[in-house]
């Protein structure tokens, strides 16, 4: 199921990635020696039981946390050597995020939530509102622009979240349990949308427990005890 990368093409490469946490009760190895290249235009699914290191891996790949060893390369940039402000710029312009709990900003409407990352990127108000409307329309939310998150259903919130993730036209989308809080019908809509995003040439990385997600995956990575499970 190889996809042809388009103008969004940016692969993401993890090499020897590891994360250890020091604590009073000793060192905990959350992730160990993880290497993988996530190709542009593909949808990769990372699965594993609780505590297997899925969230840690996602945080390291997305530059939300720093590894204790290894590297993450996006295009020709090593994420692990960048200063925090440069990592923030990379997250703003190259990455998009979809979370299990939607994590919309509660005080902003659907339109304002989608426009928010564009505001951070200094896009003009007119331009960001126009683009936010287009994105929300694409996910069937054209009639819900001015609704606050608590006025939206779970599926609608997740679609707003997906629209927000695409606001700055990122090359890589990270989705953490995107169907975790949704019924099967809403989950299906979100998965189809993610598939569509990957088909546009973006790199999509999904962390999930949901076996249904594997149906749309190009690549399946299983984690166990902080390592790739090749069994």
């Amino acid at each position: 199921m190889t996809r042809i990368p388009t103008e969004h093409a940016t692969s993401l490469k993890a090499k020897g990635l590891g994360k250890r946490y020091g604590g009073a009760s000793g060192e905990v190895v959350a992730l160990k020696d993880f290497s993988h290249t996530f190709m542009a235009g593909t949808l990769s699914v990372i699965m594993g039981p609780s505590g297997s290191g899925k969230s840690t891996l996602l945080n390291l790949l997305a530059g939300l946390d720093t590894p204790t060893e290894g590297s993450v390369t996006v295009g020709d940039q090593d994420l692990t050597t960048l200063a925090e402000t440069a990592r923030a710029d990379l997250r703003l312009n190259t990455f998009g995020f979809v979370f299990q709990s939607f994590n919309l900003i509660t005080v902003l409407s659907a339109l304002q939530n989608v426009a928010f990352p564009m505001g951070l990127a200094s896009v003009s108000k007119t331009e960001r509102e126009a683009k936010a409307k287009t994105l929300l329309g694409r996910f069937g939310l054209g009639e819900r622009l001015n609704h606050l998150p608590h006025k939206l259903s779970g599926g609608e919130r997740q679609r707003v979240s997906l629209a927000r993730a695409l606001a700055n036209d990122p090359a890589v989308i990270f989705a953490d349990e995107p169907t975790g809080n949704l019924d099967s019908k809403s989950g299906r809509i979100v998965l189809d949308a993610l598939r569509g995003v990957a088909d546009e040439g973006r790199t999509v990385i999904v962390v999930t427990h949901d076996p249904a997600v594997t149906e749309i995956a190009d690549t399946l990575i299983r984690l166990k005890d902080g390592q790739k499970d090749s069994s």
Partner: protein
Amino acid sequence: MVWFLALSALRQRVLRTFLTALGIAVAVGSMVIFLSLGEGLRQAFVGQIGSIGPDLQVSFGPFNASASLTSLPELPLEYVERLNAESETYGITDITPLLFHPRGGFTPGSSFLFQGLPPSKDAGAIYYKYEVLEGRTLTETDDTHKVAVIGEQVAQRNRLELGEVLRLNQSSIFEIVGIAKSEGGLIDNAILVPLKPLQEAIGIEDRVTFLALDLSEPGAAAATAERLGNDFPELGFQTRGDVLGVVEEGIRITDVVRLGISAIALIVGAIAVANTMVMSVIERTREFGVVRAMGAKPNFLFRLVLTEAVVLSIVGAFFGVIIGRLGMIVVNNIANDLIGLDVAALTVRLVVFAIAVAIAMGLVSGLLPAFRAARIPIAVAMARE
């Protein structure tokens, strides 16, 4: 973006925003009331002493406003003659001896300041807009008579009428022969009596509190004061500016005291803001993590929290000034009943100062929560339920 998000967040938590702003408003309001007392006194003194009074005031030794009014008079009357003898040298056109004698009471309303002056002198030269409302003014024939012209406020406060008497001590009773019209100033509380009977009443017949000098060239008062000071080193010579300066210094000292008292209220207000912002940061930790994940820099969250704190403070300051203004009206009503003066005034500089203090309070109290918001690790924030 920061302003928009900050205002949205404050609007969403409307009750908390209201209560915190109310706390700040009370703090700022109490500060405005305290400090408006100084502004009112300044206006009263500058408005009246600045426009009237002698060209030069002579005291025995350096001028001390409070000591002059509370201690026995020290300036020998012989200086009237000595200065008269030099009047041509210094361009002195008139010399008026003045004697101030307070009669204390338990309340401002029962305290009087007797002011003795030669009855032949025009009180209008000393008091702004002096005009007799009832009865008559003091005349030359009152030189040895125990009579008094009192201010309208003194009369109203103490329910005094023409023909009634004021008791200075057991043997000295002054009959009220005139009531001066209220002008909302110092004359309202004056008790003007002839100099000699007042000297007799307090047993000091050869001394007064001040001499008031009128000069042929009032514009040269400072230079004349310096020359007189060289020839009469035992005396103090004060221009109107000098007197105002001493009064201003006294008010400034009380400013510090009142500001100190206000600081307690301000500290409480600052703690309220800090508490609200810390709570807000804790509650929104996950949201802040999401914002950071989306590409916001730590500085964005720092500015966001600080902006919220400052907006809260500005809103609080706005209502604080209104509370202060209302409180000031109450204070002035009470003060007018007691001493016939508007002791509090809300000036532009006081409003600007109150808002500046509130903004500073918001900045200081928002700093710690803002640092906290900016420094939360993203992964930790995102994991927060």
